[in-house]
């Protein structure tokens, strides 16, 4: 799942190239996603905000979040 999120993030960074504020946010998200087990190091509210910024639909947020947690061995 994290890999999928990284792919979305790369696409969004390209898309936002001419929108510095949005691009900067994605740049920070890129760094966060690169952190091993990042989902265990953030409160759930910040993690959901990141998923929303990655355009994950509201209805899928819990499912994606749980998948990220499940992936940590």
């Amino acid at each position: 799942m994290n890999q999928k999120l990284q792919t979305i993030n790369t696409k969004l960074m390209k898309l936002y190239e001419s929108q510095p504020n949005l691009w900067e946010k994605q740049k920070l998200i890129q760094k966060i996603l690169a952190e091993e087990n990042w989902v265990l190091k953030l409160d759930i509210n910040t993690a959901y905000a990141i998923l929303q910024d990655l355009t994950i639909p509201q209805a899928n947020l819990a499912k994606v979040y749980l998948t990220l947690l499940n992936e940590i061995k």
Partner: protein
Amino acid sequence: MVEAENIQALLKEYPYLKDIAQTHLLLTESDYKKYEKDAQLKYGFAKTISINLFQELFLNPHYYVYVEKLFNDEINQLVISYVSNGDTMGRIELTKSELLTSLKKIVVETNNEQLAFKYQFLANLASFAQYQKKVAKEEVTYNIEGQDYTFKMQDFITFLTLDNFDFVRICLDNEIKTIKGVAKKYFFYALSKSITQQTLDNYLFSQSFVTHYQDLTSYSLVDYQAINTLMTTQDPNISQIQVNQELHDLIYRDMPQDYTTLEKAIYIYIKLCKTLTYDEEFYAGLQRGKVAEKHEDIKHVATISPTNNKVVCYEFTAIYGKLLNELGLNYKNYQTFEEKFGGGHAMLYFRLDKFLISADAVVTILQGDIAEAKFNHPLKGLHANNRSPETRAEFKKAFLKVYEYLARQDKSIGEYPFMQNESFAQIVAKYRQLNPKLPDITLAERLDILLARLNDINKVGIDNLTYLVTLRKILFSEEELRNIIKFTIISNSETLSQETIRASVIITVNENGLRENPEANAYYLYNPNESIQRITKEEIIKNLTLNIYHYLNTVDIIPGINYGGRK
């Protein structure tokens, strides 16, 4: 002379204070308080004295007696107190150098001739020349790292009076290995023992002399703090400790051959943390009973292996100490309460050249290094305690190098999150600044996530509880953890066999407040490695009544259950 008469009256009233009055300048409470309201003179390190009282020390013959006592070395410092209901209270302390430095200031400000004369007289008694005259011909001998060395005091004085450039050069130039034919660090060690803070308090040294002395004794230029420490291992049980061969082989198996002794010591610590696990039965059993007896038997240490890997703090410490000893390092096993094996929380200190290191893998049970190392989380239990920041940084660098190596071997976790932890926090903080309004997530949704996750985790023993602590932290705010959801770890003997107990968790939830309407509290029982289940209040009370459940302490009790815990 009102004060002097007052003091005589005091001593008449409390004759037993006569002895203390020999060494302390005693004032009446009203005089002392009166002086406190005066304009104050700052001196020493954040200390103050009334300017009037300070001047009186030299002008009032009764007070001046104590100044004379100080300069005649009859007392170490001038102490001023007051008497209240027969007890001495308050305390103003002045050393010779504090007295002289402040007096010089007052003389400059007031041009008082009498004070100026006193200053000249006293400054001469405590001058650098007087000090030099007193000690220059003295020799001192110290046993340093097992051998006797003799030093001339004059050599120490000459060294501290060097100009700053030469002083720093000699300290920092690694090519300069000796001073007066003795290892540089040994020379500094002997200097710090021969010239003490009391010496500085008693004489007027130049500012550069004092600065050089402080630079040396703070170990900021050269770290010799470890000299003469831990010359032997201090562990009464070392001869009885045996490390299991399988465990020994596993610890050493992948250790890089080119590691320094420091890196090896760090490697062994982290590898032990990754291999061993804290015994949850011991935790749940409140560190008493049969399980405690097992761990308190020193022979049990030899049975601890990669597969039989449940330990408690003193077993971890025993194994680590023994392995350090194999590396040729001395250590001190420190136990709270008693010296006997298992007599309280255990940790150890060891010395490795200049490094003074402490090791405590179980600072807390659920979040000690023995738990955190398995997640490659930052570790807190292995420290260099040297005062020198450079030495601590050197240790940290070696620590991170070894941890990174070990973390990379641990393919199941990934790489080395601990390396970027600080910068990660900064990145997240920046991200939050761009997202001032974070989404709200209902308690029900977060609870669903928690329950789903707990049903799925499959870690070893107490590591499940460590994981639960992490989940609790990321899913719920501190306020929620105070008011609407509570995790109570209990000892649970309702298990597979009658002989064992384990740590379970009761999760209590009430969106409207745990204490406001306890009848509506919902309870869940979590047994590690089993599915989480709802449990009724009645079942909990029954299990507490039948002693199947025990609280681990009398404070963390299950909300809404009026049984057990703090009365």
